C-alpha cells in the first residue's frame, strides 16, 4: 500500500499542504470575490428594479399631468371664450348706455339752448317794444300835441301799443 501510494506520489504532508492551499483560496475568494460580487449584483438588481419602478411611475405621472394639462387648457379655453363673450356683451351694453346718455345730453343741451334763445328773444322784444312805445309816444306827442286832449293821447298810445303787440317782429 505504501509502495502504491509512493508510486502515485501521494505524500500526506503534500496532501495537507495542498488542502490548506485550497482552503485558503476558498476563504479568500468567498471573502473578497463572491460576497462582494453577489452583493453588487443584488444592489444593481435593486437599482434596476427601483429605476424601472420610478420610470413607470414617472411615465404614469407624465400621462396624468398631460391629461390634467389638457383638462386645464380646455377649461381655460372655455373660460377665455366666456370672458370674450361677456366682454363683448358688456362693451355693447356700455356702448348703448353711452349712446343713450349722449343723446339725452345732446337733447338737453339743445333744449337749454332753445330756452335761452327764447328768453333772449323775449327780452329783446320787450326792449324793442318799450323803445318803440317810447318813440311812438314821443312822435305822437310832437305830432298831436296841439290838437288832442290828454285822454285822446292815452287812447292813441294804448291803441298803438295794442297794435304793436299784435304785430310780429
Amino acid at each position, binding site marked *: 500500500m505504501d509502495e502504491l501510494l*509512493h*508510486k*502515485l*506520489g*501521494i*505524500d500526506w*504532508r*503534500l*496532501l495537507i*499542504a*495542498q*488542502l490548506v*492551499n*485550497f*482552503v*485558503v*483560496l*476558498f476563504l*479568500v*475568494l*468567498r471573502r*473578497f*470575490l*463572491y460576497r*462582494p*460580487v*453577489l452583493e*453588487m*449584483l443584488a*444592489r*444593481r438588481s435593486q*437599482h434596476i428594479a427601483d429605476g424601472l419602478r420610478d420610470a413607470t411611475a414617472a411615465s404614469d405621472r407624465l400621462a396624468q399631468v398631460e391629461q390634467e394639462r389638457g383638462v386645464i387648457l380646455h377649461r381655460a379655453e372655455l373660460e377665455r371664450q366666456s370672458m370674450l363673450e361677456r366682454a363683448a356683451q358688456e362693451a355693447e351694453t356700455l356702448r348703448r348706455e353711452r349712446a343713450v346718455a349722449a343723446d339725452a345730453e345732446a337733447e338737453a343741451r339743445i333744449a337749454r339752448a332753445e330756452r335761452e334763445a327764447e328768453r333772449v328773444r323775449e327780452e329783446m322784444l320787450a326792449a324793442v317794444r318799450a323803445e318803440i312805445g317810447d318813440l311812438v309816444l314821443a312822435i305822437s306827442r310832437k305830432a298831436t300835441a296841439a290838437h288832442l286832449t290828454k285822454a285822446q293821447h292815452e287812447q292813441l298810445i294804448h291803441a298803438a301799443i295794442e297794435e304793436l303787440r299784435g304785430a310780429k317782429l
Partner: protein
Amino acid sequence: MNISLAAEPLLHVGTFPITNTLIMAVAVVFVLCVIAVITRRKLQLIPRGIGNAIEAVIEQILDFMDSVTHDRAQSERFLPVVAAIFLFVIASNWIELVPGLGTVGIYEMHEGKEILIPFIRSASADLNVTLAVALFSVVATQVMGMRVLGVGRHLGKFFNFSNPILGFVGILELVSEFAKVVSFSFRLFGNIFAGEVLLLVVTTLAPYVVPLPFLFLEFFVGFVQALVFSMLTLVNLQMTTQHTEH
C-alpha cells in the same frame, strides 16, 4: 523524455519536499487571490473593466448552477464551493498549456541518467492536489448537509439502525462518499496527467505545428474536467441538502 506519476521535488525544506506542482498550486492560488482582491476594489454599480469581466464569469457560473438547482438562492449558497473548485481546477489545467513552461527546470541525475525536472507542472497532474480538492469537495458537501439538515438528520442517512435495509443503505452511502473522493481525484488526475504525457510525447516526436491540435484538445479537456468536477460537487451538494425541500 521523463514521465513521472509523482510530482518532482525541486528542493527540500528539512524533510518536506517542495514539488513543482506545489509551487504551481501556490502560484495559481496567489494569482486567483490577487484577481479577487483587485476585483473587489474595481466593483462598481455601473460595471466596467476587470470587475465587469469577473462579474460576467460569476454570473455565468450562477446561471449554469441554476440549471441544476432551479433555485437562485440555493445556487448562491453553493457558489463559493463550486466556483472555487471550478476556478482552481481550470486555472491549474490551462497553465500546462502555456508554451515553454515545461522546458524550464533543473537537471538532476536519476538512476544514472540526467533528466530535466521542470519548475512548472500542472497542479492537476499531481494526485496530492486532486485528492485535496476532492476531499474538500466531499467534506464541504457533508458540512453543507449538516448545516441545512441538521447534524442528526444528516448523519442519520449513514447510520440508520431503524431496520437492516436502511442500515445497509447507510453503509453504502458512507462507502460512496469515500468512493467519490477516489473517483473525483483519479478522474481529474488521469485526464490531465494523460494530457501532459500526450503533449510531451507529441512535442518530442514532432515539435512544430503538429502539437497544435493537441493543445486545443487539452484546452477543451481542461475546461470539461473543471466543469465535471464542479458540477458533480454541485449535484452532490444539491442531493445532500435536498431533503429540506420535502
